[in-house]
């Protein structure tokens, strides 16, 4: 196991990338802490598979370095990096038995048979396939095959990291949950560094200690599931995570008030004047429908999803979602909305802006964005 460092890493599939748009993966600096479980979350084509393939050595980056425990492996071939990867659909060697599949990476590295047999038994126990070792891999179900490819990765003791490229895509829904639980258990028991690529927020949030959200070739936020929920650093994180996602409303900020079409929303903090595209972001969970206070909305539809109700409404011509409790009564005359001032985030050009506390804050307002990656728009 190892700490994986990405140093100034960027990748373009074009031979001579010019502008920033040519890069499938934009410049990135990050340390993957040894033994942690990460999820790489983002929509299709955001560069997450590119990043994964660079770490596994299937792709060589156009710029920057990648280090395992401080050792530069940027140009080392896949085999030398000692990583394991589980692919989107199960890769097994059809003509071999389950046992031979699991033994394959060890035999290729010339380990002696007694060690191989012992290790295969151990792994088979871990993935719960001891009674299937003699079976041919071809006839197995997709989830069993996926377990074999996972086992093939873990069979090497010195494996630096386990990489998963949307491993549950072809698995039946009821098995997904089981496999995810098993993965988490394995991580807990053996402490491998794991990097898990997915576009499914539930998968990412339940699996990982830290979620890395990518958007348009850039890492927009790295944080715990809680941080992503409460303080999305980028509007994309806001509406990509959550169901439904964060409401993003164009606004004008003046001190500790956000003006939306002439009416204002109280903010918990004060802000200095902001340039560019200014928006406020409020999660549906922190918006509340009311009869008397707040800003006017037009309720269009109420969806009861069991645990709670989702109210779809119109707010100054744009859509807004509000979540109400399952037992909350919603009447026809409730046509105003209020926001929890502590939960309203302010965004300038899609990036979150820090405000200054309302009382006795430092005189110098801190409006710097704080997201670890270069801001594209300054």
């Amino acid at each position, binding site marked *: 196991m190892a700490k994986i460092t990405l140093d100034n890493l960027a990748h373009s599939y074009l031979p001579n990338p010019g502008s920033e748009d040519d890069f499938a993966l934009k410049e990135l600096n990050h340390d993957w802490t040894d033994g942690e479980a990460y999820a790489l979350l983002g929509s299709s084509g955001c560069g997450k598979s590119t990043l994964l393939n660079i770490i*596994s050595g299937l792709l060589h980056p156009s710029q920057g370095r990648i280090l395992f425990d401080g050792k530069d492996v940027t140009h080392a071939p896949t085999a030398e990096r000692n990583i394991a*990867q589980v692919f*989107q*659909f199960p*890769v097994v*060697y059809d*003509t*071999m038995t389950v046992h031979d599949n699991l033994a*394959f990476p060890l035999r*290729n590295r010339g380990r002696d048979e007694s060690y191989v047999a012992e290790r295969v038994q151990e792994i088979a126990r871990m993935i719960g396939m001891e009674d299937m070792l003699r079976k041919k891999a071809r006839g197995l179900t997709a989830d069993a095959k996926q377990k074999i490819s996972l086992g093939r990765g873990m069979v090497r003791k010195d494996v630096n990291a386990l990489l998963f490229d949307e491993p549950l895509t072809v698995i039946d829904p009821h098995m997904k949950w089981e496999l995810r639980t098993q993965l988490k258990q394995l991580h807990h028991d053996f402490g491998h560094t794991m990097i898990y690529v997915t576009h499914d927020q539930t998968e990412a949030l339940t699996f990982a200690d830290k979620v890395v959200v990518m958007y348009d070739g850039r890492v927009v936020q790295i944080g715990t599931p809680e941080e992503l929920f409460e303080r999305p650093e980028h509007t994309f994180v806001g509406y990509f995570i959550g169901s439904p996602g964060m409401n993003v409303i164009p606004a004008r900020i003046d001190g500790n008030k956000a003006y939306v079409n002439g009416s204002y929303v109280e903010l918990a903090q004060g802000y200095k004047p902001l340039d560019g595209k200014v928006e406020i972001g409020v999660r549906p969970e922190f918006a509340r429908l009311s009869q008397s206070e707040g800003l006017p909305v037009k309720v269009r539809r109420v969806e009861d999803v069991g645990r709670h109700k989702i109210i779809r409404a119109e707010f100054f011509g744009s859509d807004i979602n509000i979540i109400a409790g399952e037992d909350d009564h919603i009447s026809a005359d409730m046509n105003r909305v209020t926001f929890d001032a502590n939960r309203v985030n302010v965004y300038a050009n899609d990036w979150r802006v820090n405000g200054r506390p309302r009382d006795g804050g430092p005189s110098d307002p801190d409006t710097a964005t704080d997201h670890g990656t270069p801001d594209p728009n300054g």
Partner: protein
Amino acid sequence: MEKTVNQKAWFLVLPVLLLVAFSAVIPLMTVVNYSVQDTFGNNQFFWAGLEWFEEMLRSERMWDALGRQLMFSGIILAIEIPLGIFVALNMPKSGFWSSFCLVLMSLPLLIPWNVVGTIWQIFGRVDIGLLGYTLDALGINYNYTQDILAAWVTIIVMDVWHWTSLVALLAFAGLKSIPDAYYQAAKIDQASRWKVFRFIELPKMMGVLMIAILLRFMDSFMIYTEPFVVTGGGPGNATTLLSIDLVKMALGQFDLGPAAAFSIMYFLVILLISWVFYTVMTNLEKREG
């Protein structure tokens, strides 16, 4: 659901029945007819029973031709299948050069068979053929009209030239269907090139390879035109394969009875071997699938 019974529906299959009758059944029955009769000319026929079949089974000539035929099919399969796979493995996987190779390799498949024969007949001639002349100039004694080995080498090389592309194209199609993830997984597992072939490429190609083997076997077992144009079955009877022998017997000597019995047995042998192939193939798939 209630089924309607209407015997007139038989008329609907009548066109197909007629078509099959004229295209297959009636010609085949003529052959069957000849095989059980004898004639002394004047269009007078006598019942001969299974006499011709017995004679053919005892005939050394037929067994020799069958032996040569099996040897020919065996040799070309042993060359074309591995060579086709080798070519497919080394072809560019995509882009302009891939298409270029595909077109180039399809060319021999588009040439009419007797033209292929003519090309090689001339190519191998010692007086005007490029191949024959060159070999002769190098001091190699090559003459396919007199030397048995030279004749065999010529028709085998010709068949390999003509048909290896088919195997290569089928194998290439099989290779193209393997997702990249398999190769990436093999890299991660540190599999050698041989193991990648043995455990990924070969199993994934098995289906198309079986088809390639079956097609090439049937085709080579029935081959007539190309060797006939090149060697005419000679020198002596050295390259007289089954169908060449059959034509000699039926049209050269006008032995209709024996030739008809011969054809029927020829047909049954092909049917039998194809059936064995097919059964083995489907069983393999079932066992592994």
